[in-house]
């Protein structure tokens, strides 16, 4: 078994969730690395969409941001932000990968403020494209590098980006497209999905050496637990080799 760090494991787990022959919106950081790894492993025909207009890029080299030249290098179209967002709004984009400072049990995310809105205790970056991605993509996958009770919270300080809002039917009630919503959460402890009926977050798989109790204890809200908990396979030697030698050889992220 290869030696690896937590970030590398997170990238591998996220990567495996990326389905070949679909279009996925990816943001900077782990989603980008995961997409690049997926394209070199099991999903060569994954079409990666970036919000500033690049779609279908080769990802030969790792972009530094969602609009740099690597996001449309050898791409199939290089348009603009409206076209990218409207492609999602029209229902063409299957997956969206997001992150956040806080997530609640319905998969809602906060990337705006800690404390009250203004002036806030901590001003975070804001929605960026996350709100659009989570409003329009069919399935969203949240990546949370640090699974603890400050990040998996009962109540968000600010609901930046919609998950299942306050429960079943509330997305549709708010006007969001039917049959869309959060799909998975990847954290440093494991992978969560959502209970079909209650739309509440549910532990599906833990990372090796992590117990389901640890996941529950590190979540402020009551984390549901699936009847059968899988264990995420560790990064394979091949995954690590490709990740280190081809995805991020300059060690920009890992």
């Amino acid at each position, binding site marked *: 078994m290869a030696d690896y760090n937590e970030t590398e494991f997170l990238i591998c787990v996220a990567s495996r969730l990326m389905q070949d022959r679909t279009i996925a919106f990816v943001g900077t950081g782990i989603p980008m690395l995961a997409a690049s790894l997926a394209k070199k492993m099991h999903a060569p025909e994954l079409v990666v969409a970036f919000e500033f207009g690049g779609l279908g890029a080769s990802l030969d080299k790792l972009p530094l941001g969602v609009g740099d030249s690597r996001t449309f290098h050898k791409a199939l179209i290089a348009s603009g932000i409206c076209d990218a967002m409207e492609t999602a709004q029209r229902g063409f984009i299957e997956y969206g990968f997001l992150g956040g400072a806080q997530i609640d049990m319905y998969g809602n995310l906060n990337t705006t403020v800690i404390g009250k809105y203004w*002036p806030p205790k901590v001003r975070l970056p804001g929605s960026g494209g996350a709100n659009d991605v989570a409003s329009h993509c069919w399935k969203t996958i949240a990546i949370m590098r640090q699974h603890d009770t400050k990040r998996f919270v009962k109540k968000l300080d600010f609901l930046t980006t919609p998950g299942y809002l306050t429960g079943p039917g509330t997305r549709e009630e708010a006007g969001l497209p039917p049959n869309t919503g959060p799909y998975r959460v990847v954290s440093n402890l494991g992978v969560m999905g959502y209970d079909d009926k209650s739309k509440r977050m549910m532990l599906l798989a833990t990372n090796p050496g992590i117990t389901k109790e640890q996941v529950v204890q590190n979540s402020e809200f009551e984390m549901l637990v699936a009847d059968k908990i899988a264990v995420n396979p560790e990064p394979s030697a091949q995954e690590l080799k490709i990740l280190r030698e081809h995805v991020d050889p300059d060690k920009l992220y890992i």
Partner: protein
Amino acid sequence: MEVLESGLGELFQKPDVWGFREWVHKHKDKTLTSKLMTEQEAVAKFVKDGDYLGTELYGTVRAPMSLTREVIRQGKKHLKLAGQGIHEIDLLLAADLVDTLDITYIAWEVYGISSILRRAVESGRVKTADWSNGAITWRFKAAAMGIPFIPTLSMLGTDTLKNSSAKVVKCPFTGQKVALLPALFLDVGLIHVHRGDKYGNCQIDGISGFAFELARASKKLIVSAEEIIDTEEIKKYPEHTIIPFFLVDAVVHAPYGSHPGEMCYNYWRDEGHLMNFLEDSKDIVKTKAYMDKYVYGPKNHDDYIKLVGIDRLKKLESMIGGR
């Protein structure tokens, strides 16, 4: 229209369609007259204290940095900004020239949040309203279309909507709820392009971000270009013109105008410079030292280029990918 819900965020710029029409009718020059000028002339002539300013870019890519630095050197105050931005907004905030922000995302992507934004907003010095990236661009698009608002399915059900000035209504055709975004007409737009002619006809390589929309949403538009080309080149490929001359008030020749950001196919971003800035920006004194050295120090963009050093810039050129 019966409004089901109204965002409580302040509407910093009213969607005044008639005012915009009257303004462009009275002020916009529809003639083929050279608009080439220095960035000092352009900013002095077309940016006023209190203006609502928009910059077009993708993160640090194709950012109108030379124009932004000149706005700061001239100390244009009480600005309103729309961002989606990074380095250029950090600089404007650090110079304490900004009163309000229609914010969608201001941060350093993978390198994390902006210390300068935090200080400006957490202190209560800068007021904010929040939007999504799509929403703010659709606000420009509505302005570019000459209509007072545009619907979207974004922002519904969230605090983002509650802290914006969007409104929720029921669609009279389908009965579904939609968010209406007020058009965002800018007093001044700043855009950096690959090439343009002296009249302001401009071309952009690669993705075009929201240049099309922002150019059309601006009462006054200052364009900087890596290269000034002959109008005959424009006429040969008119389908490559993304900004036609009649939208443009000033054309500034600014090679390396996006530095320390990237310009696709021209030069890679200056990672060292940005990492140093990012570190400096955590500290008020060091931020001021950066501003003194790179913004207030050089008297113009030529000076800035000399300060950065042509060898360094040539190196960045060598690092950029081709097609």
